[in-house]
């Protein structure tokens, strides 16, 4: 299955924006992890931005960046939001409230607890009415989201926005899910066209029995590799690095223990 990549958004420690991060991801500049200021996510109406969680703002920020690059009207673009844990900080607040005698739950907090919260806020901000899928596959949520998005592009022959995000998990939940750095990335995927700049070919294969110790997806930069392993959304880094390098490359993504996604990245020079 072939799709074109028509826009990318990125937000992570030391990777603030796709264009700003290309040289680092291509290996031309050293990677330095720096704290991420709360993203602007300017497409959100002020009221919604005030109410929204960090994960909503991170997801919306990268979605906005990718869509702006693509030049598409967001109202025409269905979305897929892939996240392992979704609104972990909202769960923390809800479960704290539910552990008290009064069990007083804020209605706003409750409707922000759904896995499709970020997708919902994106829809409200853009007034889009296209299909939107929010999904999870634990550590392989990006792989699952990529497959859902590519299958949708193939089925409907039109662009789809894929957003993957997971934020640092607050205490005490971090003991159960030790994600220490936030990561969000977005891709506008579209049917290949004459003016496409990057083509992504997706192949699903059975993983060899027993698995291999070091998959070729491992990143050369140690700090980036730590980030990749720490956050499920950062499993998108090998794809981001390949696109940034602008050379043909094949990377593999694990999908559960017995499936493997092969991503063949081909920059076009037309």
């Amino acid at each position, binding site marked *: 299955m072939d799709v074109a990549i028509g826009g990318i958004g990125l937000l992570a420690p030391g990777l603030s924006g796709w264009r700003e991060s290309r040289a680092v991801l291509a290996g031309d500049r050293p990677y330095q992890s720096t704290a991420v200021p709360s993203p602007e996510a300017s497409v959100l109406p002020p009221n919604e931005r005030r109410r929204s969680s960090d994960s909503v703002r991170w997801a919306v920020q990268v979605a906005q960046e990718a869509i702006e690059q693509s030049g598409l009207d967001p109202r025409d673009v269905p979305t897929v939001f892939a*996240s392992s844990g979704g609104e972990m900080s909202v769960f923390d607040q809800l479960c704290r409230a539910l552990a008290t005698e009064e069990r007083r739950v804020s209605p706003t907090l409750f409707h922000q607890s759904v896995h499709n919260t970020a997708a919902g806020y994106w829809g409200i901000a853009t007034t889009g*009415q296209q299909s939107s899928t929010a999904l999870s596959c634990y550590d392989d949520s990006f792989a699952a989201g990529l497959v859902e998005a590519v299958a949708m592009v193939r089925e409907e022959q039109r662009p789809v926005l894929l957003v993957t995000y997971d934020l640092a998990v607050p205490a005490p939940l971090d003991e159960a899910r030790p994600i220490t750095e936030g990561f969000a990335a977005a891709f506008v995927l579209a049917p290949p066209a004459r003016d496409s700049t990057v083509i992504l070919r997706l192949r699903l294969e059975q993983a060899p029995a027993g698995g291999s110790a070091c998959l070729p997806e491992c990143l050369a930069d140690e700090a980036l590799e730590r980030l990749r392993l720490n956050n499920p959304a950062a499993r998108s880094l090998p794809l981001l690095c390949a696109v940034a390098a602008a050379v043909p490359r094949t990377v593999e993504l694990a999908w559960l223990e017995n499936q493997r996604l092969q991503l063949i990245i081909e920059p076009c020079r037309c």
Partner: protein
Amino acid sequence: MPPSIDPMTPLVLSAYTLVTANGRGTGAVLDAILARRSGLKPCDFEDVTLKTYIGRVAGLEDFSLDHDLRPFDCRNNRLAWLGLQQDGFTVAVAEAKQRYGAHRIAVVMGTSTSGILETEHAYRARDPRTGALPAWYVSRYRYTHNMFSVGHFVRTCLGLEGPAMVVSTACSSSAKVFATAARLMRAGLCDAAVVGGADSLCHTTLYGFSALQLLSSDPCRPCDEDRDGLSLGEAAGYALLERVERAGGRGAVALLGYGESTDGYHMSHPHPEGAGAVRAIRDSLARAGIRPEAVEYVNLHGTATRANDEVEDKAVYSVFGARPACSSTKGWTGHTLGAAGVTEAIISALCLTKGLIPGTLNCRRVDPALQCRVVRDHQFGALSCVVSNIFGFGGNNCSLVLGKL
């Protein structure tokens, strides 16, 4: 202009099963519908003191998941497990495994709250000095509360090795799994798919819907002029989807179409004109390649909140007029949230098989403001095409078209 939609090739529901508060298995669920026996009872869930009715599945407190499944043990996965044991479903999947191979069968599950009840319990058991969560919880978060838990669990139980994911879009979750599975099959990524949903009672939804003032203090009364809110329920349901050429006999129930949309309006209020809902319904008909006149029965989302039933009525009327019979089956099951999609898809399948248009339980007088033809009493007769609507938080909508081949 939205792009035109090509009709899809129908996918057969070659096996299906359902557990709700009405009972275990499709036979028990259908018997309760025919006898107009509701599964809703005054709330007796754990130590919850809210004055409301719930559709609780009896017996989930009386067993645990053991051996290899022990890490998965939580209310949501127990419910998912109970669902798998009914109607010979595991046998049907085992046979499909022989036909296609374990790696060629996908698992696409839907849930809204997964095993959050475990996290709620763990927060009550925090170390008073350090605030740390108990060890029994920490090591099992992945297998219980994480959103993928029920997908992982079902894949493990059935020994399947194909693509898998959990769709979580609030109430529309386990309706959208049919759409995702259809895409995976069309793309050649699998030959068959186990789709389903499991969503169980928890404090988050009980107190959350209470905070939104959307819970009725009586059993919910969909489409009634005096309806005053929903009743929460829990359910697990599954369908095995296969291509017509491998599993389609005359009279088999099939997924004919699906339509997905969002409102782009508000997180918890539906679009006032039901614009997103209309889009989902129209897309489902386009994908089924049928005109609205072909639909004989609409299984409404019908939650019994003032706003949902009113807006859904506008949407359904604008597509179908007052011709097809409409009803909500939530008076039997309660609103099973992330499992509502598969619950009502399976009920629709049962209706197709039995030639039953179910009435609307607890609806004493149909709200005269509603324009659709809402039926209160059961009707019997040949039935060939049903639309099932599900609309959820975040303005996430999905309509399914089910029919007989």
